[in-house]
């Protein structure tokens, strides 16, 4: 059964031993950032519910998505489901997209409404995530906006997680990069010198955070993908002051508008590539209305040197859309592993129709909306190589690559500005390594026959495992 909100999911995590409560009071700094880092360092890292933060009355939850166990539980799979099985199951559910939303009229997130003397530093238990961040950030909030030229078009409504710096009592900075959908909305509003209404949802059904950080097409609805992945329609409610649809289950909704044609300093912020971004001029959001539950839980995300919670959150929601987009025109593709730094590194497994096909698959990746700016290092392996098994991938690299023919550089291509090796920020050189076995008309200078697995190997694996468990039992 899907979860209706964050709280239901936290209960499930607790039941499965994947949620820890910290009951003693902690300091906002450095404890909350340290708790987020520590939880993601643990094997099968749990979510951590911090019940008392000094100076605040609200609870804080961290690391909700921060392990493969939590990731499986989010989609109602057993917590020990292997990674490739999670990929294949999600890929199957993805085919049910789109599932229309269900509108509700009353929800707990409307219990308290604040429109006067808004002070986000009182309403939210804010804290510095990493030591040299320029301020206190909302790192896991979903921002909802509509296309100003087509405001009634539900499918063009965007839900995205963008980093938000709290820059005043009712002021936020937003990092909207040029290739993000919200930047299209913002550009259209700014061309008309109009504010862009936004709503910001904090503390959500974990599937919403998953879809909000998925690189979907411009006219594909994140809410309708959430419905497909949950197996039931996602529930939304109308915002108080605009035509925006907001998640019915949220803990907090902030409503406001992006101020047109205004940019002010934002950052630095410890980002997903494991280093700080610089200070840049970013857009500002003025908040005029806040609704929240009576006893709200503030959900935030720690990110740092990989792997941390964000690497689990962005693993399959990056891999599966790339897989679907490439497979649509190249059906030989078997799987895509884009788990490395949000798809900066990608491994694709594919059959090859003719010589050079592996390289063509890599170039198809580089023409997808996400692969174009993000993907920098692309490794292509044969269809029988599991791209999630790095030992197998290294085998393919060491035994299939002819460096003079199979390693290609594409200079001065679109890049990702948060990648510190991007030069200038926003451009980089692409590296394609084709580690597939050459097929005609490529020159095959000598035949290569793979060593087959001996018969009865599977049987012996089971026998040996049983024998080993008996030794353990004696100890």
């Amino acid at each position: 059964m899907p979860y209706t909100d964050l709280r239901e999911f936290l209960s499930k995590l607790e039941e499965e031993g994947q949620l820890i409560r910290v009951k003693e009071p902690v300091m906002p700094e450095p404890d909350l950032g340290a708790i987020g880092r520590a939880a993601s360092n643990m094997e099968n890292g749990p979510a951590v519910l911090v019940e008392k933060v000094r100076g605040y009355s609200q609870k804080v939850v961290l690391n909700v998505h921060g392990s493969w166990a939590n990731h499986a539980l989010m989609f109602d799979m057993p917590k020990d489901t292997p990674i490739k099985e999670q990929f294949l199951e999600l890929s199957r559910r993805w085919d049910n997209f789109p599932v229309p939303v269900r509108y509700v009229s009353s929800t707990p997130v409307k219990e308290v409404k604040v429109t006067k003397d808004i002070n986000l530093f009182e309403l939210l238990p804010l804290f510095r995530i990493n030591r040299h961040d320029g301020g206190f950030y909302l790192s896991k909030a979903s921002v909802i906006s509509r296309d100003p030229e087509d405001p009634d078009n539900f499918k063009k409504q965007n839900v995205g997680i963008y980093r938000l710096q709290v820059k005043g009592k009712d002021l936020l900075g937003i990092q909207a990069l040029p290739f993000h959908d919200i930047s299209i909305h913002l550009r259209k509003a700014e061309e008309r010198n109009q504010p862009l209404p936004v709503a910001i949802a904090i503390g959500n059904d974990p599937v919403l955070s998953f879809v909000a950080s998925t690189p979907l097409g411009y006219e594909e609805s994140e809410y309708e993908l959430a419905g497909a992945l949950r197996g039931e329609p996602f529930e939304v409610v109308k915002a108080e002051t605009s035509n925006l649809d907001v998640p019915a289950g949220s803990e907090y909704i902030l409503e406001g508008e992006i101020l047109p044609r205004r940019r002010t300093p934002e950052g630095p912020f410890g980002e997903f590539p494991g280093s700080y971004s610089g200070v840049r001029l970013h857009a500002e959001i003025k908040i005029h209305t806040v609704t929240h539950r009576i006893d709200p839980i503030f959900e935030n995300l720690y990110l740092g040197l990989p792997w941390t919670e964000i690497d689990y959150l962005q693993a399959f929601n990056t891999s599966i859309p790339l897989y679907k987009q490439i497979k649509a025109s190249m059906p030989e593709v078997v799987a895509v592993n884009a788990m490395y730094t949000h798809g900066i590194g990608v491994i694709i497994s594919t059959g090859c129709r003719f010589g050079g096909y592996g390289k063509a698959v890599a170039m198809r990746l580089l023409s997808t909306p996400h692969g174009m700016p993000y993907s920098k290092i692309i490794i292509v392996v044969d269809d029988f190589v599991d791209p999630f098994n790095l030992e197998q991938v290294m085998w393919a690299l060491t035994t299939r690559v002819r460096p003079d023919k199979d390693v290609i550089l594409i200079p001065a291509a679109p890049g990702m500005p948060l990648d510190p090796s991007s030069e200038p920020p926003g451009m980089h050189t692409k590296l394609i390594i084709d580690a597939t076995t050459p097929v005609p008309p490529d020159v095959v200078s000598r035949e290569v026959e793979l060593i087959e697995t001996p018969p009865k190997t599977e049987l012996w694996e089971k026998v040996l495992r049983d024998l080993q468990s008996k030794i353990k039992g004696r100890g």
Partner: protein
Amino acid sequence: MICPRCDRDSAYKVVDSPVGEEWSVFICEKCFYTWRSTEDEEITNPEKFDPRFKLTEESFEKMLCIPPIPPLKSGG
């Protein structure tokens, strides 16, 4: 109040802790650096602030604008 990051006299208090007298939070209205009174001196004291993260006049001039502000459409 002096901002520990950009050294301008442009910081103000934005909140005292809502529960108890635990801390206060300050913001610079020029560079938006934000800190809590309970953080250490490399964060709160202009003289001891980590020099790698200081902002100078030159840093403000060189800041990239993301996303760029588009030209106004006629009649807009």
